[in-house]
């Protein structure tokens, strides 16, 4: 595309042909889309953290070092610390925000909040559980639902769904600490009532009002 199409000084009164207009639109849209700030920092940060946690745990198990899994407990807070730092830095240098980047930021936040809830939940289980069997799975579902609700709530800018997501993450963690099935179900019922049904009905009434 010729550069002179892009910009003509004093462009408020000049005429363009139809083809020039379309070419300019296409050029600008492409130019904005090509502009992204992905430099792989997140992948590199997490890559090293997870690699050190995996390889370190292997070595600790191999040489029977006590407290073999502490690296995994360390991995998440360290990773989140670096990601928050990187996020703040990126915000400082960012000159534009594409729709794709905005959505990726939201998904990233929801994903890491879910991951954190799972790690906390698993630790809660091992601290409080008296059962001899394997880890209970119920909490994982609620945490995963929290992720889904958070993405919807933040994309729609609908706060009740975001609060519902937080409630489901907390409920998921709590389920790991409650041994009795009936109480797990009670926590689940409260999380669904306040986290799903209340925002669902609020959305329903909102759409009804908009139709009127």
């Amino acid at each position, binding site marked *: 595309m010729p550069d002179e199409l892009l*910009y003509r*000084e004093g462009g408020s009164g000049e005429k*363009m042909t139809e083809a020039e207009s*379309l070419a300019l639109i296409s050029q*600008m849209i492409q130019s904005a889309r090509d*502009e992204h700030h992905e430099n792989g920092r997140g992948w590199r940060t997490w890559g090293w953290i997870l690699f050190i946690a995996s390889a370190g745990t292997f070595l600790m198990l191999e040489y029977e070092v006590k407290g073999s899994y502490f690296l995994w407990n360390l991995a998440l807070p360290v990773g989140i610390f670096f990601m928050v730092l990187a996020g703040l830095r990126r915000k400082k240098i960012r*000159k*534009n925000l594409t729709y794709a980047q905005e959505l990726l930021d939201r998904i990233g936040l929801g994903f890491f909040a879910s991951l954190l809830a799972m790690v906390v939940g698993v630790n809660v289980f091992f601290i409080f559980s008296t059962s001899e069997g394997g880890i209970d799975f119920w909490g994982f579902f609620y945490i995963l639902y929290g992720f889904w609700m958070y993405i919807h709530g933040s994309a729609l800018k609908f706060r009740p769904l975001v609060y519902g997501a937080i409630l489901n993450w907390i409920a998921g963690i709590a389920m790991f600490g409650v041994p009795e099935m009936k109480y797990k179900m009670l926590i689940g019922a409260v999380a669904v009532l306040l986290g799903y049904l209340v925002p669902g009905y609020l959305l329903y009434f909102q759409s009804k009002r908009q139709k009127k």
Partner: protein
Amino acid sequence: MFKDLDPILHTPLRLAIVSLLISVKEAEFTFIKEKTNATAGNLSVQLNKLKDAGYIEISKQFKNNYPQTICSITHVGIKAFEEYVANLQTYLRVKK
């Protein structure tokens, strides 16, 4: 020939600005300047014309003690842009 085309959009720089803003959620003044190769003075004038027409929103804030101008397209701007493109296509007899 172009009498039906929106005069606010049918100029190179303003059309370039709106085409950029339609693709992003928001953009800094320096980003638009860089992409359009416009001078700061002319860009400022054209941005204000678009703002007065209700096509874009301009907010000013401070980042690291430096003033920063953030621009984003409004619903009115999106509608006007879509209409402009549809009219262009009609002129060019391009089928959607």
